[in-house]
């Protein structure tokens, strides 16, 4: 295990390069380039907020950052679940030639989407600061804890899925469906009070996605610190997934090369 971790550390220049190269190729030869990462979620959030605030009689000024925070975190998770599950398949040429720990290839996709998430967060911060300046305070610091927590969740999650998806290529297709179902039962775009009104408290209180989202939403939109249970759920998910990744990886790590 320690050997595995040193392997990841020794290859650090390689996986950072891979992540950056993914981003470079995404933005290459487009005029707005990196700004698309900011504009895309912002545009979608504005559009949705415009419709939903009318439908649900909510204040668009507050609802728009709510949706934006949902979109960017959700995008991050989806890209790591669907994209992450294909990490090994995509990196087959590298895997067949270099003996690096396989987890660096999922780390590559996590790191790439984490950078995209950080960029997409900038308009969210700006919007919140403009509309809700009364919430600016020390609790804004809590927002920063989102990034390491998300990485700690997405990395083992993508790794588990990648191990399985290399062997069973149906998984990425099935994940597309699962992700949509998950979106539907999580307070990503819809406010939590809608779920509570419908008597679906369970879907909020025991949903790690809700708790993760609260880590940015509580400081930005409610002007409070995230609660301990928010952190407990996020950390618990990360620990569980890490354990699972270790269990699956122990058996699967060496066999992946045969299925590429």
């Amino acid at each position, binding site marked *: 295990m320690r050997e595995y971790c040193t392997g990841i550390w*020794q*290859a650090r*220049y*390689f996986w950072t*390069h891979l992540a950056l*190269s993914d981003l*470079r*190729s995404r933005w*290459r030869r487009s005029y707005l380039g990196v700004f698309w990462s900011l504009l895309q979620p912002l545009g979608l959030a504005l559009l949705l907020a415009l419709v939903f605030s009318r439908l649900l009689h909510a204040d668009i000024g507050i609802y728009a950052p709510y949706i934006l925070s949902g979109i960017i975190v959700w995008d991050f998770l989806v890209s790591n679940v669907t994209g992450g599950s294909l990490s090994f398949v995509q990196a087959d*040429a*590298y895997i*067949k*030639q*270099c*003996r690096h720990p396989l987890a660096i290839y999922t780390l590559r996709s996590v790191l790439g989407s984490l950078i995209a998430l950080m960029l997409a967060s900038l308009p969210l911060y700006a919007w919140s600061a403009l509309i809700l300046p009364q919430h600016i305070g020390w609790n804004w610091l809590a927002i920063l804890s989102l990034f390491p927590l998300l990485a700690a969740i997405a990395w083992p999650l993508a790794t588990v899925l990648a191990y399985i998806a290399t062997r069973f290529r149906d998984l990425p297709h099935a994940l597309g469906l699962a992700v949509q179902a998950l979106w539907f039962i999580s307070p990503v775009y819809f406010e939590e009070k809608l779920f509570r009104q419908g008597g679906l408290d369970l879907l909020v209180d025991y949903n790690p996605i809700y708790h993760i989202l609260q880590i940015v939403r509580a400081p930005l939109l409610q002007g409070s610190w995230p609660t301990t249970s928010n952190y407990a759920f996020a950390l618990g998910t990360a620990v569980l997934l890490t354990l699972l990744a270790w269990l699956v990886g122990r058996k699967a790590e*060496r*066999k992946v*090369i*045969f*299925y590429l």
Partner: protein
Amino acid sequence: MKHSHVCLHGANLHYSATAFKERSLKSLLAHPFRRTRTGTRIGDIHALKNISVDIRGGERVGLLGHNGAGKSTFLRTVAGLYPLSSGSLRVAGQIRSLFDLSLGFEPDATGRENILYRGLLMGLTPAFMREREAEIVAFADLGEFIDYPLKTYSAGMQVRLAFAISTLVGGEVLLLDEVIGAGDASFMAKAQRRLEHLVDSAEILILASHDLQALARLCERGLVLHRGELVFDGPIEQAIATYLEINGNG
């Protein structure tokens, strides 16, 4: 000093058929009505059969065998890429494998940037690559094209750059798979010298090739593989003779 060591003992390697057989609902439904055209059953591949080899520091080993005999599998096993189904592999010394020289190239990046990228792939640090960049540029000898995107390069130019980078650093255990033979005549001579220098500085060389002259020149010991079995292990001249005999040319 010569502490490098490669030791395979009773090594077997199987490729499981589940990894490449088509398993889909479509083929399952079609199965009762269709037979494979030739009637062959697709089963597990026994790629290396009970191979025991002991290679010590200072040895230059050539691998012979026709296509599919297990040369590349042997090299990749020694590199630690494939898990053995039984037997043991012990390697002492840092392994440097040159299988696919242009892996890790980005077509949209310039030649100079690609020098860095390929170096990172090989596990080198950015600082080290910047230090050696001038040397690589000089060796590849691409003129002003070094600052052009890689996709503007001809195939030969790409090979020159790939070769210049990949052979920059040697290792204690050097594994080469058919890398000889690239570029025009003048570059070939230069490449040949460089490769020989690389081979000289390595403690162990294992070279898989069909170029019998190169094998005879670079290696002293030859291993002949035939259908995954090690059929000969001894001096290179005899190994070449055995290889030719097995393949019916001798």
